[in-house]
């Protein structure tokens, strides 16, 4: 026990001396989780809180251009500025020079084009019903706008936002088209305008979509950027311990301290266990600090609060297993690396690759099938699966079996390979 205590003290002193390592292990993950959560939360608010700045150049000579502008305003997802009488050739310049993310161009014959379409459909419908259709001059058809409205994007606008914007526009134009078609139908049947009862029904949206996350229990957890990011980046931070622990192991080996321990009976394994104990403490305190920040600090700066899982024992188990997997991987890298540069370089790059394929940056479900298979090789994927089950689905033991089994096997494998190498080098 005295040997273990002495090794523990030595490890703590070495760790306290390694200021850069401590910063990497504690400050870097905090910065990461703050930055990523703020950025993702901003992206969420950009779409949902009227923060997408759009310029509408409404050159329409009729009334439907104004209807489109009004629909855009009513949608509540955009901050809108309207201009008239601007030439199409100036749109790109206007978008790039202004502070708008997109410019919507409504051509001068927008109403005329939509009316012509509506008229054609109305005529066809009345004809189908066996009613006599007035032979109209088809002037509208000749002037029909082929391209419809135009949307010019600032190149910095990401594709997902472009798609969101186009879908919104498409829905609004379809609504205007439908209303115009019904108006035309009534006009052809001799009404001056759509009866108010019908108009009221048209303006009503009876089909509501209720979105609700799938949860195992009755938890009040709401999936948001905090629930996603805090566990994900905590795992990333734990595995980044490879830089400190891996290079620490190489340094001791190269300095000859390990060789000296070989000549002291039983001391080497005490030293290794003490190392594992100290770094386990580091990993678990990393998690505690990150989660505490999510719970107490995030709400103070306007970010969503982190809701901790209601199942405390599965939560502790996944935390401990994730920490053990991270430490065992770091120990294995430190045992096999020949130099500190190798341990740092390989360790850092391998963690970044594990994070990328493991779904830390981009969710695994958006990956192609073969990448989904590959992602299962990453320990970070299984740590994330475990934490997501707890933090997003309020999962219980059954849902955690996969991550638990994988993490135990991964930890055992890394420790076996590390011990095998140490035995081959005659340290144990």
């Amino acid at each position: 026990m005295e040997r273990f205590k002495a090794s523990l003290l030595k490890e703590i002193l070495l760790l306290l001396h390694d200021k850069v390592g401590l910063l990497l292990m504690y400050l870097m993950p905090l910065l990461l989780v703050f930055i990523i959560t703020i950025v993702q939360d901003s992206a969420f608010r950009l779409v949902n809180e009227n923060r997408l700045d759009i310029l509408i150049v409404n050159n329409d000579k009729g009334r439907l251009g104004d209807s489109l502008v009004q629909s855009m305003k009513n949608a509540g997802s955009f901050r809108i500025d309207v201009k008239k009488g601007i030439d199409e050739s100036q749109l790109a310049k206007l978008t790039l020079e202004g502070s708008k993310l997109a410019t919507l161009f409504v051509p001068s014959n927008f109403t005329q084009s939509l009316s012509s379409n509506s008229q054609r459909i109305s005529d066809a419908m009345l004809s189908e019903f066996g009613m006599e259709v007035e032979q109209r001059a088809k002037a509208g058809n000749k002037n029909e706008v082929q391209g419809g409205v135009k949307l010019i994007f600032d190149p910095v606008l990401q594709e997902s936002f472009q798609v969101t914007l186009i879908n919104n526009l498409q829905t609004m134009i379809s609504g205007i088209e439908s209303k115009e078609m019904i108006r035309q139908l009534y006009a052809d049947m001799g009404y001056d305008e759509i009866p108010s009862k019908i108009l009221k029904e048209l303006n009503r949206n009876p089909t509501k979509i209720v979105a609700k996350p799938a949860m195992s229990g009755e938890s009040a957890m709401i999936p948001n950027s905090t629930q996603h990011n805090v566990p994900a980046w905590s795992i990333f931070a734990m595995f980044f311990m490879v830089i400190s622990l891996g290079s620490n192991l190489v340094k001791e080996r190269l300095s000859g301290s390990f060789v000296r321990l070989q000549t002291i009976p039983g001391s080497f394994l005490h030293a290794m266990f003490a190392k594992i104990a100290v770094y386990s403490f580091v990993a678990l305190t990393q998690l505690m600090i990150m989660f505490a920040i999510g719970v107490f600090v995030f709400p103070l700066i306007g970010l969503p609060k982190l809701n901790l899982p209601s199942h405390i024992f599965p939560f502790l188990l996944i935390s401990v297993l994730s920490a053990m997997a991270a430490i065992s991987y770091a120990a294995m890298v430190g045992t096999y690396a020949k130099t500190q540069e190798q341990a740092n370089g390989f360790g850092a790059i391998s963690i970044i690759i594990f994070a990328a394929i493991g779904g830390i940056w981009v969710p695994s479900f958006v990956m192609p099938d073969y990448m989904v298979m590959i992602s299962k090789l990453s320990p970070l994927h299984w740590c994330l699966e475990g934490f997501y089950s707890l933090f997003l689905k309020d999962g219980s033991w059954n849902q955690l079996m996969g991550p638990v089994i994988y993490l135990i096997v991964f930890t055992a494998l890394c420790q076996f390979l590390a011990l095998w190498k140490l035995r081959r080098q005659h340290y144990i």
Partner: protein
Amino acid sequence: MTESKNTSHIIKVSGITKRYPKAETNSLSEVSFDVFRGEKLGVFGPNGAGKTTLISILSGILPQTSGEVNYFIDNESANFKKILPKIGFVPQDFALYQELTATQNLRYFGKMHGLKNPELEQKISFLLTILGLDHVGNRKLATFSGGMKRRINLAIGLINDPEILFLDEPTVGVDVQSKVAIMTLLNDLNAKGTTMIYTSHHLREAEDFCDRTLLLDNGRIIAEGTLNDLLKQHNAESLEDLLIHLTGKALRD
């Protein structure tokens, strides 16, 4: 130069051979010799002769490929596990924690040897004082000069009061003052009965220090005996002469 002090074995080496994995030649080939209790045995030879490999095998750091090493306690054959706590090892590298203080290093290795307070603290104080480091005991080793680190490297090897001390180049890269301090302490310990197996490239220092000499070349023993006998036998004037005479002038690495 003194004659061998004792004829009782402490180590008996019988035909050990060492070949590293993937190596084409043996680092040691059929090496046999005895180490006597209380003697200072010098192991010399050109670079690559097998000196460090030999010391590593004797101190249990490396296994031999074949052959036997037997240790004796009170003239009785002893298991290596029994002899291990009685071994001190001073490696050529600074096998130290540069981020810790001198005292913290000594305390750590002392506790790993199973020493307890107050004996351990007394031992630390004694070693720091005798090696002229008592005023810097609480300074981190990273701030030490090469000579100071070498003395701490020796102190750690002595923390367990070893009966057998393996010294691999204990004075390399140190100033004359540190060298005198180290050699004086080693002679004092030997006078109290510590057996020493020593390698060095400082041949003048070795001539004065060693009771008996083992010359290695290409992993084989090429000469063994007291320095006086070897010099007479090969008509050489010094250990350096003798080595050149037996191993030639060609560079080895």
